[in-house]
C-alpha cells in the first residue's frame, strides 16, 4: 500500500489551479488594508516615515503606560507534588500540646494549606478535657511573631549554626575539662525526653556519680515553692497534688486564682464550670473566696471576703480552728482580722459548709508561704479531701521550681563558682526580685547561653543565643500530671533559622541525633512497655501522635501517703498582720507572667474584672481613691498617675478603680513592661518589687507607700460604665429563690399590652411578618451565666477565627473595640433597687458597692429574628437567613452605621479605618505584619474600611458542618458544629446548635426555666438565649436592698 497518501482540501488544490496557488500563499483571502491603515506610504517604499515613527512611538508609550497601570501580579505557586493530606480549602487538624511553664493544654491545631491558624482543645485528653485558656488559643499568633530570634546570635551579632556550635562546644569542653560548673536554668520541665536530653547533656560535666558540676535548676516566675515546701514537710514529697473540682461541692479558696493563674487553670475551668450549673436536683457548688484583690476567680465566688494579704494566714488558721473545734481537734494559734465586710461570718459559714461536705470539698490556697499552705493541707486532711477531691497519687508536674534553688544559684554565680549558664524558657533578669541581684550575678558567669525562642531581658545579656523553635514547630513530649502524657508535634516547618533547644543540647553533648529520633527512642524503651496491647512501636507511636495523648491510669494507688499535721507549728511561724498599706503583685488573666506579653490578641483582651487593656495599673478600691483620684476613667477623663514606693524601688502607674479590692491595699499586675507595641514597652515591670520571705518569693508586700504625682495618664478600658442600673440585663437570683419559687418570681417574661388593653406575651405581638424560622435549621446559642467565669478564651478565639482586627489602646479609649464578642462585667451597687420597684436614685446606682458582687455576660450579635438592624439598612446589606442568622454582606455595605445605632445591644462594629493598612495600626494589628498575617483565616473576609461587621455565628463553620453532614447523608448532629467561642468554652457556658432540632442540647436549654432573652420586652426575638445566673446564697443583694426602704416605710 502506498503510505504517502495525499489528501486535498479542494479540487482546485488537486488541479494546481493557478488561482488557488496564488491565494494559498496569502494567509488572508481578502485584502487587508494594512498600508492604508499605517499610512499613505508609497507602494514600494518600506522605509518608515516620520509620521509613522511618531505613531509607533505614541502607541508604544500608551501601551507601556497601560501595562504599567496593571495591578501587581501575586503569584500563587501550585504544588508540583501535592502532599497527600493537604487539599487546598480543607483544614487539617493535628493533635499537639502547649506548655510554656505557666499553662498546659492538650490542643488541636487547625492548619490551612500548611499554616497553623487556630488552636482548640483536644477532647481526648483527660487532663484538660478539651478546655483551654485565652493565653493558649492566642499562642498561635506568637508563632508568626517577627520579633522572634530569626538566627543564632553571638554577642548580639547574627551567626550561623555551625559557627555557634563549634564555639559553644569548645567552650563547654573547656569547662568540662577543668571540672567547672555549668547550670541550666529553665522553667519547670516535665517532658521525659527533654529531661533525658538534659541529663545526657549534663553527663558531659557530671563525670562521676553524684557530681554536681552540672545542675538543672527549675524556676517558675509565678512560684509555687511554698506549696512544694509545705507538701514536702507534710507528705514527705515535694509535689503538688491534683485538685478535682468536678467532685467538689464546696470550694474555699484563699487567694488561689484557680480559674486564671493557679496551677492548671485550663483543667479547673472546665470542672468548676460544670459544677456551677444547677443540676436536676437544683444543686450547685458553693464557692467561698478570700483575697485582697478582686481576681477573676474571686469575682465568680458566691461569697467573697476581702482581706489584707497579711491576714490571709489568719483566714486559714481561723478556718482551721472552726473546723477543728467541730471535729474535736485541738485548735491552733490564730489572730484577728481587720474586718469591714463580714469576713468572720463568711469564714464561719464556709466552715459549716465544708463540714457538711466532708470529702467533697476543696480548700485551695495560692499564697506562696509554706506555713499557710501547711495549715490549708491540715484543713483538707481534717475534711478527708485527700484521696477524694485531691489526688496525691497523680501529682501535677507543671510547677517544680523551688525558690531556694534559684537563690542558691545566684549566690553561686556571685561567688564566681559558675562557669557556664544556660537559660531556657524563663526570664530571671526580668522576673526575679531586684534584691536577689541576678543581673549582677550574671556578669560573673563566663559563658552565658540563651536557648530562648524570642528576645528576653535575660537572653539579651547572654553572649550566645541558640534560639529554640516555636512550640508549633517542635517535637516534644509532656507529662503534665501523674501518668498522663501528651505529645507536641510540629505543624509547620521552622519559619526561621532556629533549632529545638533539645537538639542544641544534644548536639553540644556530642550526640548527633536529632531530638525527634532521641524522643522516639526514649518512647520505644520507656513508654512502649507501659502500653497495653501495643506490641509494635510504630503502631503505638502513630496512635500516640495521632491522639496527642498517652494516658495510663494507675491501676491502684501507690499506697496511702502519710500525712503529718504541721498546722500548729506553721501557725506559730505566721507573720503578724500589718497595719500599713499593702501591695499585691498579681498575675492578670491575659498576660500572666508576661511570657506572651507581646501578643496583641492578649493585650487587647480586657482584664476580666477591670476591663482595662494595654496597660498595667494600680488597682485601688474607689473608697480609698476618694476624691483624690479619678474614679470614672474614660476617654476625656484620664487616670491619675501615682508613684508606689517599696524597698528602694519605685514605679509610677495610673490608678484604676477596682471595687472589691480590700480597702487599704493596692494591686499591680506583673507581666507588663516586657511585651512591646512597636518600640514602646507596654506597662511597667513590677516583678523586681517582689521579695524573698522565708526562703520563698512573695508577691504580697507590706511597707508600701503611694503618692499622687499630679500627672495624668490615659488608660483604655472596654467598659466605662460598671453597674446594671437595676435593669434585667443579667437576670440573677439566689439558689434559695430558684429552688423554692416559681419561674415567674425570678425569671418573669415580659408582657405587653396590645391595642385592646390585653396583656400578651411578647411572642404574640409582631409588627413584621415572621421569618420562616420554624422549619429547617434555626441556629442559636445558649449562654449559661452560671457556667461563664469571664475567662475570655472565647474572645481571643473569636479574634483568631474571624480575623478581627486589633485596634490598640488609643482606639479602645475611643470606644472602638472591634471584638465581635465581648464579656460584660457588672458590679452590684448598694443602690440597686429591685426591678421596677422602689425609688431609683440613678446617680447612686452608677456607683458600684465597695465590695460588690460581680456578674459576667458574654455578648455578641443576638441574631434577632426581628432584627432592628435589618429594617433600617438602605441598601439591604444586612439581612436575615432562613436559618435564623442575621447576615452581614460586606460587599454591599455602604457604611451608614444606621444598623449599629439601631442595635439595642450595640454589637455591630464599624471599620473606622483601613485596619490592614492605616499607619495608626502598624504596631498593633497583626494583619499589617507581613508574617503575622499568615494567621488570618482564609475562610473569612478581611473587612475593608467603611463597612460594618459583627458576629456571624461563625457562618463559615456552619456551612462546613452542613456540607460534612450532607456528605454523610445525615442531619447535622448535636455538637458537630461549634462556633469559635463555643469551642473555646468547650460547651461549658456557650452551647451552639439547632434550636429546631430536638436532638440538639440547645433545644432543651432554650426551654429551660432559667432561659431568657436579653431585652425581651422590645420584641427583637434573639436567637441567643441566656441562662439565669443563680448565686448560691440565700438572697441576692438586690433583693436585700429592696427590703430596706420598705421597712423604713412601715416603721
Amino acid at each position, binding site marked *: 500500500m502506498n503510505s504517502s497518501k495525499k489528501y486535498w482540501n479542494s479540487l482546485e488544490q488537486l488541479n494546481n489551479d493557478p488561482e488557488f496557488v496564488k491565494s494559498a500563499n496569502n494567509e488572508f483571502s481578502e485584502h487587508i488594508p494594512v498600508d492604508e491603515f499605517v499610512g499613505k506610504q508609497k507602494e514600494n517604499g518600506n522605509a518608515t516615515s516620520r509620521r509613522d515613527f511618531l505613531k509607533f512611538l505614541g502607541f508604544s508609550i500608551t501601551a507601556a503606560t497601560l501595562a504599567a497601570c496593571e495591578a501587581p501580579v501575586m503569584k500563587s505557586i501550585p504544588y508540583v507534588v501535592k502532599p497527600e493530606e493537604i487539599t487546598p480549602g480543607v483544614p487539617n487538624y493535628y493533635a499537639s500540646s502547649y506548655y510554656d511553664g505557666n499553662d498546659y493544654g492538650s490542643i488541636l491545631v487547625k492548619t490551612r494549606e500548611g499554616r497553623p491558624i487556630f488552636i482548640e482543645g483536644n477532647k481526648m485528653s483527660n487532663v484538660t478535657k478539651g478546655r483551654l485558656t485565652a493565653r493558649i488559643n492566642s499562642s498561635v499568633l506568637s508563632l508568626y511573631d517577627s520579633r522572634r530570634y530569626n538566627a543564632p546570635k553571638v554577642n548580639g551579632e547574627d551567626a550561623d549554626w555551625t559557627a555557634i556550635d563549634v564555639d559553644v562546644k569548645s567552650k563547654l569542653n573547656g569547662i568540662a575539662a577543668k571540672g567547672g560548673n555549668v547550670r541550666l536554668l529553665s522553667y519547670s520541665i516535665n517532658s521525659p525526653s527533654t529531661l533525658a536530653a538534659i541529663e545526657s547533656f549534663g553527663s558531659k560535666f557530671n563525670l562521676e556519680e553524684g557530681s554536681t558540676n552540672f545542675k538543672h535548676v527549675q524556676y517558675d516566675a509565678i512560684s509555687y515553692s511554698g506549696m512544694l515546701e509545705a507538701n514536702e514537710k507534710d507528705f514527705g514529697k515535694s509535689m503538688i497534688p491534683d485538685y478535682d473540682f468536678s467532685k467538689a461541692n464546696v470550694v474555699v479558696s484563699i487567694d488561689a486564682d484557680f480559674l486564671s493563674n493557679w496551677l492548671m487553670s485550663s483543667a479547673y475551668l472546665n470542672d468548676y464550670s460544670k459544677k456551677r450549673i444547677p443540676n436536676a436536683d437544683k444543686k450547685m457548688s458553693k464557692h467561698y473566696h478570700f483575697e485582697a484583690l478582686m481576681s477573676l476567680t474571686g469575682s465568680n465566688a458566691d461569697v467573697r471576703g476581702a482581706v489584707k494579704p497579711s491576714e490571709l494566714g489568719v483566714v486559714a488558721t481561723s478556718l482551721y480552728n472552726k473546723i477543728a473545734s467541730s471535729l474535736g481537734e485541738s485548735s491552733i494559734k490564730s489572730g484577728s482580722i481587720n474586718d469591714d465586710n463580714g469576713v468572720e461570718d463568711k469564714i464561719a459559714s464556709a466552715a459549716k459548709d465544708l463540714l457538711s461536705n466532708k470529702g467533697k470539698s476543696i480548700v485551695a490556697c495560692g499564697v506562696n508561704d509554706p506555713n499557710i499552705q501547711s495549715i490549708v493541707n491540715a484543713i483538707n486532711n481534717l475534711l478527708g479531701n485527700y484521696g477524694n477531691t485531691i489526688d496525691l497519687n497523680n501529682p501535677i508536674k507543671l510547677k517544680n521550681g523551688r525558690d531556694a534553688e534559684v537563690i542558691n544559684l545566684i549566690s553561686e554565680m556571685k561567688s564566681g563558682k559558675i562557669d557556664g549558664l544556660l537559660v531556657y524558657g524563663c526570664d530571671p533578669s526580668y522576673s526575679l526580685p531586684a534584691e536577689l541581684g541576678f543581673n549582677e550575678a550574671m556578669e560573673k558567669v563566663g559563658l552565658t547561653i540563651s536557648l530562648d525562642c524570642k528576645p528576653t531581658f535575660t537572653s539579651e545579656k547572654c553572649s550566645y543565643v541558640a534560639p529554640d523553635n516555636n512550640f508549633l514547630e517542635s517535637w516534644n513530649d509532656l507529662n503534665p500530671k501523674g501518668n498522663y502524657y501528651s505529645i507536641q508535634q510540629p505543624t509547620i516547618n521552622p519559619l526561621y533559622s532556629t533549632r529545638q533547644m533539645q537538639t542544641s543540647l544534644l548536639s553540644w553533648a556530642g550526640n548527633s541525633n536529632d531530638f525527634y529520633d532521641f524522643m522516639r527512642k526514649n518512647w520505644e524503651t520507656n513508654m512502649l512497655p507501659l502500653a497495653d496491647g501495643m506490641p509494635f512501636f510504630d503502631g503505638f507511636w502513630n496512635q500516640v501522635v495521632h491522639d496527642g495523648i498517652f494516658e495510663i491510669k494507675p491501676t491502684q494507688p501507690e499506697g496511702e501517703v502519710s500525712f503529718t499535721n504541721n498546722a500548729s507549728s506553721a501557725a506559730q511561724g505566721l507573720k503578724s498582720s500589718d497595719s500599713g498599706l499593702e501591695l499585691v503583685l498579681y498575675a492578670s488573666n491575659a498576660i500572666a507572667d508576661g511570657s506572651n506579653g507581646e501578643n496583641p490578641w492578649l493585650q487587647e483582651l480586657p482584664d476580666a474584672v477591670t476591663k482595662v487593656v494595654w496597660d498595667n495599673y494600680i488597682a485601688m478600691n474607689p473608697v480609698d481613691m476618694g476624691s483624690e483620684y479619678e474614679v470614672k476613667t474614660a476617654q476625656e477623663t484620664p487616670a491619675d498617675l501615682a508613684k508606689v514606693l517599696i524597698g528602694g524601688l519605685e514605679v509610677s502607674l495610673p490608678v484604676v478603680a477596682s471595687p472589691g479590692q480590700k480597702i487599704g491595699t493596692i494591686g499591680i499586675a506583673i507581666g507588663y513592661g516586657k511585651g512591646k507595641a512597636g518600640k514602646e514597652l507596654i506597662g511597667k515591670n513590677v516583678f523586681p518589687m517582689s521579695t524573698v520571705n522565708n526562703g520563698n518569693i512573695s508577691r504580697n508586700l507590706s511597707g508600701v507607700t503611694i503618692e499622687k504625682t499630679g500627672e495624668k495618664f490615659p488608660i483604655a478600658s472596654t467598659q466605662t460604665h460598671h453597674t446594671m*442600673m437595676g*435593669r434585667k440585663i443579667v437576670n440573677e437570683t439566689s439558689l434559695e429563690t430558684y429552688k423554692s419559687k416559681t419561674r415567674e418570681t425570678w425569671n418573669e417574661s415580659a408582657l405587653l399590652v396590645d391595642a385592646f388593653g390585653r396583656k400578651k406575651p411578647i411572642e404574640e405581638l409582631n409588627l413584621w411578618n415572621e421569618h420562616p424560622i420554624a422549619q429547617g435549621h434555626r441556629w442559636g446559642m445558649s449562654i449559661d451565666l452560671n457556667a461563664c467565669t469571664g475567662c475570655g478564651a472565647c474572645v481571643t478565639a473569636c479574634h483568631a477565627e474571624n480575623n478581627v482586627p486589633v485596634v490598640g489602646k488609643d482606639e479602645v479609649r475611643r470606644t472602638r473595640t472591634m471584638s465581635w464578642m465581648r464579656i460584660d462585667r*457588672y458590679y452590684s451597687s448598694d443602690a440597686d433597687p429591685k426591678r421596677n420597684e422602689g425609688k431609683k436614685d440613678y446617680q447612686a446606682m452608677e456607683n458600684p458597692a465597695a465590695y460588690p458582687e460581680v456578674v459576667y455576660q458574654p*455578648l455578641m450579635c443576638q441574631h434577632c429574628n426581628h432584627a432592628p438592624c435589618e*429594617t433600617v439598612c438602605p441598601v439591604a446589606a444586612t439581612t436575615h437567613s432562613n436559618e435564623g442568622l442575621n447576615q452581614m454582606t460586606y460587599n454591599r455595605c455602604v457604611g451608614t452605621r444606621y444598623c449599629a445605632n439601631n442595635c439595642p445591644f450595640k454589637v455591630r462594629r464599624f471599620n*473606622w479605618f483601613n485596619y490592614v493598612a492605616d499607619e495608626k495600626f502598624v504596631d498593633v494589628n497583626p494583619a499589617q505584619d507581613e508574617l503575622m498575617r499568615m494567621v488570618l483565616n482564609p475562610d473569612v473576609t478581611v473587612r475593608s474600611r467603611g463597612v460594618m461587621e459583627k458576629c456571624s455565628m461563625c457562618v463559615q463553620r456552619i456551612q462546613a458542618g452542613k456540607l460534612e453532614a450532607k456528605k454523610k447523608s445525615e442531619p447535622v448532629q448535636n455538637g458537630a458544629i461549634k462556633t469559635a467561642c463555643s469551642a473555646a468554652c468547650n460547651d461549658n457556658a456557650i452551647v451552639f446548635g439547632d434550636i429546631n432540632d430536638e436532638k440538639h442540647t440547645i433545644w432543651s436549654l432554650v426551654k429551660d426555666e432559667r432561659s431568657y432573652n436579653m431585652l425581651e420586652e422590645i420584641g427583637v426575638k434573639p436567637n441567643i438565649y441566656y441562662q439565669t445566673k443563680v448565686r448560691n446564697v440565700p438572697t441576692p443583694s438586690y433583693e436585700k436592698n429592696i427590703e430596706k426602704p420598705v421597712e423604713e416605710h412601715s416603721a
Partner: protein
Amino acid sequence: MHKESAIRTPLILDSKTYHQITEDVCAPVEGKANRLWYIAFTISAITALWGLGCITYTIGRGIGVWGLNTTVGWAWDITNFVWWVGIGHAGTLISAVLLLFRQKWRMAINRSAEAMTIFAVIMAALFPGIHMGRIWMAYWVFPLPNTFGSLWVNFNSPLLWDVFAISTYFSVSLVFWYIGLIPDFATIRDRAQRAIPKKIYSILAFGWSGNAKAWIRFEEVSLVLAGLATPLVFSVHSIVSMDFATSVIPGWHTTIFPPYFVAGAIFSGFAMVQTLLLMVRKVVSLEAYITPKHIEYMNIVIIITGSMVGVAYLTELFIAWYSGVEYEQYAFLNRATGPYWWAYWSMMTCNVITPQIFWFKKIRTSLMASFIISIFVNIGMWFERFVIIVTSLHRDFIPSNWSMFHPTFVDIGIFIGTIGIFFTLFLLYSRTFPVLALNELKSILKSSGNNYKSKQNH
C-alpha cells in the same frame, strides 16, 4: 387692584418708585462690591476650604478621624444634616405656603429665603454622603437597575425615604426658585451694559419677554408649584424624623417626632432667614424693603413654632414618665440630668425660653434683639438635634455600652466648613442674583408702598 387698609403698615418704605426698586435691587449685581463683602467672602471662602480639606481627609482616611464610636454611631454628621435640612424649610414655606395664603410681606424675603433653602439643602445633602463609610458606593442608595441580579434597595429603610424626600424637595425648591427668578433675570439682562453678563443673563432669563401672557403663565406656574411644594414642607422633615422615630432606641422611638420636627424646622428656618436678612438689608442697603414689619412678622412665626417645639419637649418628658418604660424614663432623665445636661439645657434655654421674650412688642420690633435671638435659636436648634442623636445613643439599653462622644477637629472643621460654604454661596448669590423678587415687589408697590399709602391718606 387689591386695596389695602390704610392703617396697615406699609411694606415698602421711603417713597420708592418702580424705577427705584429696579435700581436698588440691581445695584449689587451691577455695581462693585464693597470692602465688607470682600472681607466676608474671604473669611467664608477660607472656612469653606478648611471644611473641604476636612472632608477630603475623612474620605481619604476613614470615618475614624471623627469622634464617633461603637456606641455613638452618629453625632455631628447627622446633627448637622438635620440642622441644615431644618434651615432649608423656611424658604419653601415662605414662598409656597405664604403665596397660597396671599401674604404680601413674603415678597421682600422669599428670594433670599429660597436661596438659603437651596444652599442649606445642599449642605444638608452633603452629610448623608460623607458620613458613609464608603462614599464611593453612595449611588447604591438609589434604586438603580443593576447587573447584580435582583439586588435592590431596602424600601423599609427610612434612610431610603430620606433619599427620596430630600431629592424631591431639593428639585422642587430649585425649580420654584428658578421660575421666580426668570422675570428678574430678564430685568438684569435688559439693563446689562457689558456683553458677557448680558449673554449669561439672557440665557438665564429663558427669553422672557414680559408680555401679559408670560405673566399669566408665570403666575399660574407659581401657584401650581406652590401647591406642589406645600406638602413637601411637611413631608421632608416628617421623613427625616422617621430616621429616628422608626428605630428602637429610647429617645428616638417617639411618635411625636414628625410634627415636632416640622415645627422645629420652620422655627430654625425662620431664625436663619432672620439672621441672613438682618445682615443683607444692611450690607446691600435694602432697609426700605425688608422693614421692621417684616422682621416682626417673622418673629411672630418664631414665637409660634418655638412654643410648639417647647410643648413637644414637655410632651416627650410627660410621655416618658407616663409610659412606665424603664429605658424611656431613663433616656429622658439622662438628657436633663446626665452627662450631657448642658446640651439639653442649652437647647431648652435657646429654643423655649429666649423666643418667649418676643411676646414683648418692643423686643420683636427691635432689629438688634431679633438678630441676637435668631442666633440663639440657630444654636438651640443645633443642640436639639445633638441632644436627640447623641444623648439617646450614648446611654441606651445596655449599660456596658454606655459611652461619651467627643468631637475631633475634623468634626468641628466640617461643621464650620459647611457654614463657610453656605456663606460663600450666599455671598456669591447676593452679588449675582436679584436678592429681592423685584418684579413681584412692584406688584405691591401701589397697595403697600409708603408713598402710595400716604397719598391714600391725604
